[in-house]
């Protein structure tokens, strides 16, 4: 019965990180980090700058190789896969980078069709329909023929998001999706992420400093500190905790959020 339960649990976990460690030289960034993210769940990763939040995301997609540990995506240990098998997993996930990482030399249309052309056999009409559909979702239909250099920071994030979801991935990873944006745009992007997650039934891991964004999106959150998962819980549990570290960590965020709300 216990075995059956653990299998069911394993099946429900889209991402399972077991005792992952990563160091750069003598600087240990992740130290035996373990984390499970269930299907359809929005997991927020908090932490001070330099605590390894982005490193954790990059280890999940193997942009960085962990020094030890295991990372399972839908039951497959990605760290043992060959590049071809890894790419099959990557085709089913989306990654929104901090600066959106749009391809500078390509127009918005070319950016969006890039993964479609390479991994699917859509006709031109089907591809065009998909591009228009995702642009409609991020409310940027008019930007279709613009170059990335002609877009504002918020627009770039939206197009980056559109490019990530155009293949309808089951798992989305967000690296600071609202950093550098004004409070109104930040709120819009956060609401958009939640909306997309619901409509496409995605599982998400979101690295952020933005408490407002986390409050909108999160089902659950963890706080990384000194390479370990120091706290885990809902946003309310974490922000109302009496733990000195959490009080100190969130007090600054709460003040910032109140300022933002006043501005909005």
């Amino acid at each position, binding site marked *: 019965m216990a075995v059956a339960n653990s299998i069911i649990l394993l099946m429900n976990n889209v991402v399972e990180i077991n005792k992952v460690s990563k160091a750069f030289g003598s600087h240990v960034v992740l130290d035996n980090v373990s984390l499970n993210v269930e299907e359809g769940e929005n997991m927020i990763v908090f932490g001070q700058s330099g605590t390894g939040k982005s490193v954790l995301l*990059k280890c999940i*997609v193997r*942009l960085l190789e962990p020094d030890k540990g295991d990372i399972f995506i839908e039951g497959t240990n990605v760290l043992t896969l060959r*590049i071809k098998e890894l*790419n*099959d997993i*990557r*085709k089913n*996930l989306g*990654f929104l*980078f*901090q*600066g959106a*990482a*749009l*391809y*500078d*030399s390509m127009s918005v249309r070319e950016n969006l069709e*890039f*993964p479609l052309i*390479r*991994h699917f056999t859509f006709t031109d009409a089907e591809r065009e329909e998909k591009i228009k559909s995702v642009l409609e979702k991020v409310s940027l239909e008019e930007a279709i023929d613009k170059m990335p250099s002609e877009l504002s920071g918020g627009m770039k994030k939206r197009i980056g998001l559109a490019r990530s979801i155009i293949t309808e991935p089951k798992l989305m990873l967000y690296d600071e999706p609202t950093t550098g944006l004004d409070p109104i745009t930040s709120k819009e992007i956060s609401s958009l992420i939640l909306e997309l997650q619901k409509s496409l039934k995605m599982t998400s891991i979101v690295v952020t400093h933005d408490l407002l964004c986390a409050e909108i999106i999160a089902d659950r959150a963890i706080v990384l500190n000194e390479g370990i998962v120091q706290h885990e819980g809902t946003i309310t549990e974490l922000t109302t905790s009496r733990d000195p570290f959490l009080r100190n960590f969130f007090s600054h965020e709460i003040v910032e959020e109140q300022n933002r709300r006043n501005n909005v």
Partner: protein
Amino acid sequence: MKNSKTKVIKRNSIENRLTEFFIMIAGLWQFQLQFLKQVFVPPYEIDQIRKHMDELGIKTLPIVSVTGFIIGLVITMQMHPVMVRFGAEAFLPGAVGISIVRELAPVITALIFAGRVSSGIGAELGSMRVTEQIDAMEVSAVNPFKYLVITRVFATTFILPILTVYVIFIAFVGSFIAVLLVQNMSYAYFIDKVVSSVEFGDAIPGVLKTFVFGFIVGIVGTYKGYTATNGTEGVGKAATTAVVVSSLMILIFDMVLVKVTLWLWPTV
């Protein structure tokens, strides 16, 4: 005391530079091996290669045209009084032709190409690296090495010989104009003299070595850009060092290839 401190700092600086240099050579070697490992594996990205060849050709055509014309003109004007001094004025078109075909056009075109293209590739890929565009490509299950590196190296390797042949013809035009300034000669006679003087053993090695130069420009530019770090500062460094390293390597390989081509196609 102050002198010995300065000496230690200088020695450390030289040691650091030497270490950096050897690390770069090792990195470049590994990068080339990776190129050889992946070059025959599909997909071949033919459209991208064609696109880069078009872009690089159009980008460098004006500057190599001007350079080629000036090389032909200047070398002829320089050689004319010397040839007159030795009573060998009739050999002027032949001597100029051989100089252009064997050495001047391939090397100068390659150096101009390195300055224009290697820095451009270094800056472009460097900027893609520091803004995580290369990571984004990798995460979307596309091999960025094949898509960005191999396509560009192929394009530089095959476009440079074409540009060199073009520069040779433009240099002949420049040379003919210079000849006209100093003596009366028809273009047909000039070309006849050049063609009768320039042999197979002069033309083929001159053009063949530009494949090597083109490869150098591509591999150094992509290596510097692909491995760029430290934000915008790293991008600038990638662009400038790409030019310096590729130009230096072109000259070193030219020295080696002269020996090899003379052995393969002896002129005497």
